[in-house]
């Protein structure tokens, strides 16, 4: 019992200190973190959907999963490069980092479009198919 209470106290302390340390990060980075968190959430949702319903269209499963993860991780890379506390990246201009981010996202979406094979509405389906063929 004694140990458990100590652990609980420690856990609370930990959470408090994490919270206070986190508040110190600038606002623009917090937006970043929120987006990354959102994408990870969607990723988990997609995986659980597949586990429940079965991977009928493996293409669309891959598309959903990997688009979430891909954009999340590219955002993480941008975060790393933009974070002012990161000593090694002081000489990298934020605009250059953002341009790299845009380029890599462009390539990533060009690639992921090839996996997209179905869409709920038939009209949208036609639109997306034609986009895919163009790409």
């Amino acid at each position, binding site marked *: 019992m004694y140990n458990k209470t100590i*652990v609980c106290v*420690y*856990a609370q*302390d*930990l959470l408090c*200190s*994490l919270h206070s*340390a*986190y508040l*110190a*990060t600038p606002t623009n980075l917090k937006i970043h973190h929120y987006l990354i968190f959102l994408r990870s959430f969607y990723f988990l949702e997609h995986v659980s959907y597949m586990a429940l319903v079965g991977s009928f269209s*493996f293409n669309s499963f*891959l598309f959903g999963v*990997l688009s979430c*993860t*891909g954009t999340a*991780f*590219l955002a*993480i*890379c*941008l975060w*790393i*490069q933009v974070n002012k*506390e*990161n000593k*090694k*990246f002081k000489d*990298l201009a934020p605009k250059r*980092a953002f*341009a*790299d*981010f845009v*380029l*890599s996202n462009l*390539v*990533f979406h060009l*690639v*992921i479009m*090839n*996996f997209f094979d179905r869409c709920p509405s038939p009209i949208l389906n036609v639109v997306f198919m034609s986009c895919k063929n163009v790409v």
Partner: protein
Amino acid sequence: MAAVESLPPGTPSAMRNAFGTVLSALILVLIGVLAFSIRLFSVIKYESVIHEFDPYFNYRVTQFLSKNGIYEFWNWFDDRTWYPLGRVIGGTVYPGLTLTAGTIWWVLNAINIPLSVETVCVFTAPVFSAFASWATYLLTKEVKGSGAGLAAAALLAMVPSYISRSVAGSYDNEAVAIFALIFTFYLYIKTLNTGSLFYATLNAIAYFYMVCSWGGYTFIINLIPMHVLLCIVTGRYSPRLYIAYAPLVVLGTLLAALVPVVGFNAVLTSEHFASFLVFIIIHVVALVYYIKGILTPKMFKVAVTLVVSIGLVVCLIVVAVLVALVASSPTGGWSGRSLSLLDPTYASKYIPIIASVSEHQPPTWPSYFMDINVLAFLVPAGIIACFSPLSDASSFVVLYIVMSVYFSGVMVRLMLVLAPAACIMSGIALSQAFDVFTGSIKYQLSSKSKDDAEDNTSTKNAPKDDASSGKADKGEEVAKERLSKKGKKKEREPAEKPSVKSKIVKKKALVLPLEASIVALLLLIMLGAFYVIHCVWAAAEAYSAPSIVLTSQSHDGLHVFDDFRESYAWLSHNTDVDDKVASWWDYGYQTTAMANRTVIVDNNTWNNTHIATVGTAMSSPEKAAWEIFNSLDVKYVLVVFGGVIGYPSDDINKFLWMVRIGGGEFPHIKEADYLRDGQYRIDSEATPTMLNCLMYKLCYYRFVETDGKGYDRVRRTEIGKKHFKLTHFEEVFTSHHWMVRIYKLKPQKNRIRGRVKKLKQKTSSGVSSKSVKKNPWM
């Protein structure tokens, strides 16, 4: 580098820097020309022809691509091979090589340079080897500097192991894939060094090109995770590592899944699991570092204990699920070829076809010296040079060479992956050695002249101090020169005497005596000369044979044996377009490409049962073989026979594989029936099964007419059965030196006389009732 760039132009060091850049550019151009021209021996000695077997398939695919366009190419179903099964070319070929050559052909034709597809195919490999040596320069420059880069590029341009797979005419996947491999590694190291997301994207695209080109891309996707793990474990984690690795895995897996050959294997097979595992690990490590950064140390310890206890439980669950998934497949998720790399005895036990290919045998010790020559003992020196100082990039190169040495020990074919690693290491070693020796010579020479000058001055107050400070000057300049790139930066800044003395004391110890340095330099240059001589010899004599044209020197001049092309031309001119030709699988690609006839089995060897059918037919007596071939609609049978001229790779020498593979599928073929005292013999001691089988009969039919005794030059004996007739086959073509022999299946007789038919029915039913259960063909 930064100090030099800030110097105003026109100063001596900036001039020297510019001169150095121009010189190294010139050297690179010369290296490219060297790499291209050393591979042209076969074109000069023979002609501009495509070599071997596999390149003919690639050539045929490229012809199709250039004629019909890319959409037809993706959807191509080839019905002229593996009759009656066919082969989906679009989904089973690595498209990188054919698309590259097709693009080059298309671009050249668009600007009105009318090169034929064959010329483009023949010269693709030398061009890409020039690119590969430039990529080696870039890679080694990232690791150690441009001096080492130039040395490594020069070594790669000539290394015999790479020449063997990229001569002019060897139009195979490795010609392009080695360039893609080195370029991908260069971009990875560049991303690791700079931490820029731009290079990470380029890295993923280069990896995509590698996946398109060769099945050996699994080497990259396993080596890079291993290196990341190594960096994490040795405490070298940094955000640059994350940026180098995470986009590569995500983008790279996606791009790999786009290539039809790989498809969903990119996420489902065990060859890729290492990359996912390390992906998860690097995220855990990144999270740990992030939390460590924002917490106080005491809180961090609490967090660690909490997380470890919870995380361990979660980890165990995940690992259990994964192990269950992997164990559910019989090979643990690995493909047969990869498994034979990890366990070298796997192929010989379970997949005799993989074991039978000569390229898949382990190499012998002499072949190491033949293929990488002098580099074999420069590599350890390079490994040591990489450890001082150890950076991320140099640890990667060390890991690369260790892994490639292991894999080259498993398969001769993978010596090709060892070659770039060996060249990089040797380039580093050579460059460091040259630096030390030339630095020593300069120091010794300049210190001698400085000593003479200082002896004359006696007016200074503290001659000892001045002498030591003078030496300190020289020492510091020499130290700076030694650390500089080859012939580029020479900073002659006046030294700050007291502060650098401690550094100089350390560096002075690297200076060698003058005579030793000069002798060592000369020896190194001689070593390089021996290397060059060996490489040129290997390129000219050993690796330039096209193997479709054979030559031999004898006392009355040069004999050329062009039998293969002669017989394929005969086939294409004297048979119908839809006739099917049966031969052993070695000749399938050449037959479809040059003779343009449908074949039963070819070099792709994807269907073991089909090959076993052909092998059974070749090992059975004439009637049984005729039945098998007739059921496959075969009209012509082609065998290769080397007994007249002494050509050792003929079908009789390959016969043991026909028996083994056939016997693996059809149990009525027993290897023991063909062996006498454990050997395959064709002389009078041969077993009756051997003397009656189709291969023996087709090879030795009318052989006794050549010299009256039937002396086989390859097996060095006279043959056993000399005079016999063929009942179910008729000979239609034998080439000039009896190397290729083509037979036609005789059609069934229209009628058999009545009484004989009844007798035949009685006897055949009586005789065959015993064997009808065993032999599925009768």
